[in-house]
């Protein structure tokens, strides 16, 4: 099963991953914040992930690991 793991400590909530995901797996949380004060990226529809890694390719902070 394909899936992603977001390193919440280094995520900056920029949204480039969510914007790149063709399956609308990712959304930026409206209430969960990390210790740097950034709202973090979350896999809200993990079952739809196809493991294409588009999200990770666009993440400027290498915060995403993709498994397939």
């Amino acid at each position, binding site marked *: 099963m394909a899936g992603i793991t977001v390193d919440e*400590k*280094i995520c*900056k*909530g*920029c*949204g*480039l991953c969510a*914007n*790149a995901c063709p399956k609308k797996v990712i959304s930026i949380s409206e209430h969960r914040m990390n210790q740097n004060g*950034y709202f973090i990226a979350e896999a809200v529809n993990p079952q739809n992930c196809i*493991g294409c*890694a*588009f999200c*990770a*390719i*666009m*993440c*400027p*902070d*290498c915060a*995403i*690991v*993709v*498994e*397939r």
Partner: protein
Amino acid sequence: MKVFQKTKMLTDAHLHYCPGCTHGIVHRLVAESIEELGLQEKSIGIAPVGCAVFAYDYFNCDMQEAAHGRAPAVATGIKRCLPDRLVFVYQGDGDLASIGMAETVHAAARGEKITIIFINNSIYGMTGGQMAPTTLIGQKATTCQNGRDPAVNGYPIRVCELLATLDAPYYIERVSTHDVKHVLAAKKAIKKALQFQAEGRGYTFVEVLVSCPTNWHMRPVDALRFMGEECTKTFPLGVFRDKSEGKQ
């Protein structure tokens, strides 16, 4: 099975760049390319003055900081003393095309066997958003608050095109980071440039269009759209020199 994880050519340090700044993407592309070429132990990077000033903390190889704009001169010295090393330079548009334009042009004209990664974000990012030589016509900056006006501020400089008037450069390409397809193409260009250097072929230069959401006053996603729609008009993507394919 992991199909994507951070390359070991980057350290564990957290990048200090603003959210959505694609400087980070380019760091990854350079690092992955070096790792894939198996040249980690042979690489020496030169960091600029600009937002990428801490690049020496991020690349997992020997790094040297240079004075503002002087990175190609520093790289020249290192490469001539240690010709078997892979010497790459990472510079912003203020660093490379304003204060460092002389070093840039002369290193290219001499055909130094180094690789320049040129980060074009159309602005001085680090110092708070002043106009750069690459600021687009009409684009706002703190030193052209109504938008760049050619009558007052002149026109943007297209560095790839300018360097392609010289005989020595072996490879010159302009790429972008505004979507997945273009990031993949950027990786190919960067890897090709580094490989050409490793093969001793000559001077290689890759200009990468990068976003500066903070000083463009845009959300990161909107900044990518702006790059795709506007920056690529002033700075057309493509190969300007590739001697391996006979493109002079």
